[in-house]
C-alpha cells in the first residue's frame, strides 16, 4: 500500500478500503517483540508425542490404528466423529514416524480443560513419511472438492476456537457469501504466532486465503491486519501483489491496533461495518471469518498435500531464556517446548495457555500441544501478576468505555452482587465476550470477568432448571388432563351398564365410581397387555421365519 493509499484508507476515501470504528477497546503493552526476535524454529522430534484426538463427550472416536502399530509421518491415525453433526469429522495424523505405545486419556493444552483421548506415539527419530499427494491444481477443483480436501487434512480453526474449518465453510454453503475475512488481527498481548507466520510465509497465507475464498465461493476476500505490524503488512502486500498477477483478488485492510479488534464480530464490524446481531452467526449475514493460521494450513493441505500435523506456537515469558515461535508438532508436551527455550523453572511463577487477557493457567507442563495451542507463557514472578487488593467499585465507568460490546460492566457488577438475573439479562450479560478489557482498566481491581462468568453459569443453570421444570409441569398437566378425561368418560361407561344399578343408589355410589373405574380399567389393561404380548410374539416368529428364509436364499 502506498503512502497515498494509506492516507486515503485513513480518511475513508478513494478506492482503497478503510476500516470502520468499533466501540471500546484497550491498548495494553503487547510484549510481542520478545518472541519475534528470532525466526520460526522447526522443533526437534521429541521422544514421545501425545496426539489429542478429542474428548469422548464431544463425539465418537474411530481409531485407524491399535497400540503397537508402527506408523509413518502423515499417516491418518484416528478421527473424531462429531456427534452434533453426523457427517463431520476431524481426522488426526501422525506428526512423525514411530510406534503407537498406548491410547489413553490425558490433559491437552486447550481451553476445554478436560481430559481428551490421546494417541501416545513413541517416536523413532527416523521421520519416515508417506508420500504427499498434493491436489492437482486447486484452481480447477470445485468448491465441494476443496472442502472435502480441507476436511481430510484435519484442519480446525487455528485461532483458538478449534471448530472444523470445513464445517465452517459448509455452514455458509447455502447462502450467497459476500465477504471472507482472513483474521490476521492477533490483538492479544504475548501471542505472535500469526504475525511470525505472516512475516515468513505470507505467500502461503495468501494462497490459503484464495483457496478458502474459492471453497466458500465468497465474492470478496479481505485480509485484516492491525496497522501496528509493519513487517507483516509489507510481507502481505508483496504476496498479494504476486498473487494478483496470477489469479487471486485478495485485498488487505488495516484495522486499528486495539484489543479486542480480532474478536470475530468486532472484526467484521471493523472491516465491513456490519454489526452481527446478538445470537446470530456471521454466515447468516454473508460473512465468514477464518484465522490466518487456518489459511496457511489450508495452503499446506491443498498445495503441498500435507495434513495438519503442526502449528505455530508462541513461547514467551520472563522465565524463558529465548522466547520464540516454534513450528510445534501436535502432541508434543508443553514441558518439551519450554525446555528447548531454556526455561528457568525457579523463575517461573505460573504457566499460561493463550494470551495474557483471555488465557488460562495450565495446571501442569505435561499437557500436550493441540491444534489450537497458539501461545504458552512461562511468566516470571513480577510478570502478569495483576494487583490483588480489591476495592469497592466507584462507578468511574472506565470499564464501560473499554467494553467492545458497549455493556455497562459497573451496572452488571451491581446486579451480579444481588443476583438480579432479570436486570443482568436486560443489561446484556449474555452478550459479554469475556475479553477482559473491563478488568484491565478497573482501578478497583475487581475481577469483573470471573464474576460475570459465575453469573452466566448461575443464570444458565437456572434457565435449564426452569426449562426442565417446564417440561415436568407440562407432563403433570397432561397427566391431570388425561385423568380428567378418563373421569369425564367414566360416566358414559357406567351408563353403558345402567340396568345393574337402581337410580336411588347411583348418587351414593358416585364416590365409589372412581375406584370401580380403576378396577375395570385394570382388568381391561391386563387383558390388553396379554393381547399385545401375543401380537409381539407372533410378529417375532414371523420375522424369524423371514430371516431364515433369507439365509436359505443366500
Amino acid at each position, binding site marked *: 500500500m502506498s503512502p497515498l493509499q494509506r492516507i486515503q484508507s485513513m480518511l475513508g476515501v478513494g478506492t482503497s478500503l478503510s476500516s470502520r470504528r468499533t466501540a471500546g477497546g484497550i491498548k495494553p503493552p503487547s510484549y510481542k517483540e520478545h518472541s519475534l526476535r528470532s525466526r520460526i524454529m522447526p522443533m526437534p522430534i521429541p521422544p514421545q508425542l501425545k496426539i489429542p484426538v478429542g474428548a469422548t463427550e464431544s463425539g465418537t472416536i474411530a481409531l485407524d490404528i491399535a497400540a503397537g502399530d508402527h506408523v509413518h509421518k502423515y499417516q491418518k491415525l484416528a478421527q473424531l466423529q462429531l456427534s452434533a453433526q453426523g457427517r463431520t469429522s476431524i481426522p488426526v495424523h501422525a506428526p512423525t514416524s514411530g510406534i503407537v505405545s498406548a491410547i489413553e486419556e490425558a490433559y491437552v493444552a486447550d481451553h476445554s480443560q478436560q481430559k481428551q483421548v490421546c494417541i501416545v506415539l513413541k517416536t523413532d527419530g527416523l521421520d519416515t513419511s508417506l508420500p504427499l499427494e498434493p491436489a492437482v491444481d486447486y484452481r480447477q477443483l470445485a468448491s465441494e472438492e476443496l472442502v472435502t480436501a480441507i476436511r481430510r487434512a484435519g484442519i480446525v480453526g487455528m485461532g483458538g476456537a478449534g471448530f472444523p474449518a470445513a464445517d465452517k465453510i459448509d455452514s455458509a454453503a447455502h447462502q450467497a457469501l*459476500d465477504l471472507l475475512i482472513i483474521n490476521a488481527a492477533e490483538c492479544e498481548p504475548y501471542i505472535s504466532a500469526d504475525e511470525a507466520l505472516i512475516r515468513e510465509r505470507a505467500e502461503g497465507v495468501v494462497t490459503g486465503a484464495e483457496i478458502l475464498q474459492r471453497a466458500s465461493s465468497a465474492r470478496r476476500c479481505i485480509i485484516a491486519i492491525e496497522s501496528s505490524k509493519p513487517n507483516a503488512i509489507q510481507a502481505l502486500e508483496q504476496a498479494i501483489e504476486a498473487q494478483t498477477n496470477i489469479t487471486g483478488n485478495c485485498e488487505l485492510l488495516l484495522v486499528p491496533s486495539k484489543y479486542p479488534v480480532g474478536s470475530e464480530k468486532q472484526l467484521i464490524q471493523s472491516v465491513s461495518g456490519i454489526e452481527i446481531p446478538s445470537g446470530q452467526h456471521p454466515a447468516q*449475514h*454473508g460473512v465468514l471469518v477464518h484465522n490466518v493460521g487456518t489459511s496457511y494450513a489450508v495452503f499446506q493441505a491443498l498445495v503441498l498435500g500435507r495434513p495438519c500435523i503442526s502449528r505455530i506456537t508462541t513461547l514467551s515469558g520472563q522465565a524463558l531464556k529465548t522466547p520464540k515461535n516454534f513450528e510445534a508438532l501436535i502432541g508434543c508436551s508443553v514441558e518439551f517446548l519450554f525446555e528447548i527455550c531454556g526455561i528457568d523453572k525457579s523463575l517461573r511463577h505460573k504457566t499460561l495457555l493463550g494470551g*495474557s487477557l*483471555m*488465557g488460562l493457567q495450565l495446571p501442569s507442563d505435561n499437557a500436550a500441544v493441540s491444534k489450537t495451542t497458539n501461545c504458552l507463557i512461562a511468566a516470571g514472578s513480577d510478570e502478569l501478576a495483576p*494487583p490483588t487488593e480489591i*476495592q469497592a467499585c466507584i462507578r468511574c465507568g472506565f470499564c464501560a468505555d473499554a467494553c467492545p460490546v458497549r455493556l*455497562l460492566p459497573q451496572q452488571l457488577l451491581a446486579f451480579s452482587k444481588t443476583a438480579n438475573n432479570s436486570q443482568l439479562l436486560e443489561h446484556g450479560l449474555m452478550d459479554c465476550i469475556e475479553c477482559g478489557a473491563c478488568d*484491565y482498566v478497573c482501578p478497583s481491581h475487581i475481577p469483573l470477568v470471573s464474576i460475570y462468568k459465575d453469573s452466566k453459569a448461575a443464570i444458565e443453570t437456572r434457565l435449564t432448571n426452569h426449562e426442565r421444570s417446564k417440561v415436568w409441569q407440562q407432563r403433570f398437566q397432561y397427566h391431570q388432563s388425561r385423568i380428567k378425561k378418563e373421569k369425564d368418560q367414566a360416566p358414559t361407561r357406567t351408563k353403558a351398564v345402567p340396568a345393574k344399578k337402581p337410580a336411588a343408589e347411583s348418587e351414593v355410589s358416585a364416590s365409589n365410581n372412581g375406584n370401580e373405574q380403576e378396577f375395570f380399567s385394570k382388568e381391561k389393561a391386563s387383558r390388553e397387555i396379554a393381547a399385545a404380548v401375543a401380537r409381539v410374539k407372533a410378529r417375532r416368529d414371523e420375522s424369524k421365519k423371514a430371516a431364515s428364509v433369507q439365509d436359505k436364499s443366500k
Partner: protein
Amino acid sequence: MDTKAPFQHSGKNIAQLMQTLLLALLPGICASLWFFGYGILLNILIAGFFALAAETAMLRLRGKKIALHLADRSALVCAALFAIGIPPGAPWWLVALGIIFAIVVVKHLYGGLGQNPFNPAMCGYAMLLLAFPLQMTSWHLPNEVVEGVLSVDNLGIPIASTEQEILSPLSGRGFKQALLLSFPFAASSDFDMKAFTDGLAMATPLIEFKMAGQSALLAARDSGASLFSRESETAWEVINIGYLFGGLLLLYKRIISWHIPLTIIATVLIVSALFYAPGSASIYGTPYLHLFGSATMIGAFFIATDPVSAATTRPGKVVYGIIIGLSIYSIRVWGSYLDSIAFAVLFGNFCAPALDQFCRPRIFGQGLLRATKLTETNHESTKP
C-alpha cells in the same frame, strides 16, 4: 483472583485517580489563596484532619482494613471539595461538623466508598447551609485584603478599618488573622475580634449581583480593575479559570469524561444567554457572570463528576449534566439560595439511578434493524 483471566492489568488504582484529582484542584486553590488569603488553606487542613479521623473511626467500626482504605485518598478528596465551598474565615467547628456529617452519615452509613447515592461533600455543605445560614454566607477575610479594595461593603456601610496600610493577605499578619478567624477561642481577651469579623462580608460576585444589584460590581468594573489586582470580581474569574485548568487536566488524564462538565457548562451558557437582556437592570446576569462569577467551573468539573453519585452511562451523563445545568441557573436566579452547585448536584444525584436505568447505550448486536437490512441488500446485490 490470581488464577483467572485476565492476568494483565493497566496498573491504575483509585489512589492514583484521587491524587490526580487533588493535584487538579491546586490551580484553583492557589488562586483562592492569592486573593483571599490563608482562610481556604485552613479550611482544607481542618476538613482533611477531621475527614481522616472520621474515616478511620468508621472503618474501624465497620471492621474494614484501615490502612488499605485510608490509602485510597477518597476521604481527602471529599474534604478538599467540601472545604473549597466553605467561606474562608468560618470557625473550625463549622468545617468539622460538615465534614464529619459528610463522611460518617452520607458516606459510611450508606456502605462506604462507592455506595453513597449522594455526594458527601455537597450533603455536608447543604446541611451546614440549612443549619447555619449566617456562618455559611459570610465570607470573612482578613481586613488587610479589604482595606485596599473597597472602602464600602456591598450594602454601602463603611468598613471599620483598624489598619491604614495595605498588606498582602499572604503576609504573616494575614496568616495570623486567618488563624484567629478559624480558631476564635485562641484569641487573647484583649484582642478585638470585632475588627476581623466585621472585616468584610463578601461573597461571590454573582451573589453580590443578586443581592445588591449591579452597583458594586459595575463600579468595580468601571474602575478598570486588572485581572490580577486583588479585587473581588476578578478574583473569582481567576479562581474559576484555575479550576477550569484543573478540569482540563482531568479530561486530558481521562479521569473524567467530557459528558458531564461540557453539558453543564453548555446548559448554563445557553440558558443564561436566553434570559439575558442586555442593558436592562434585570436580575439575570450575563452568561459570563454565570460561568466565571461563581462556582460553576468547580461544580462542573469536580463536584458533578463524582462518579459514585453521578449517572454512569454516557447518555445518562448528558442528561444528568443538563439537569444540573438547569438547576444551577434556576436556583441562582429564581431560588432563595445564594449559590446553587450543592443543591443542583444533589438534585442530579436523585435522578442518577433512573438515568442509568433508562439512558443506556445500545448493546452491540442488539436492537438492530439496520444491519440486517444492510446484509439483505448485500445478498440481493450478490444474487444477479
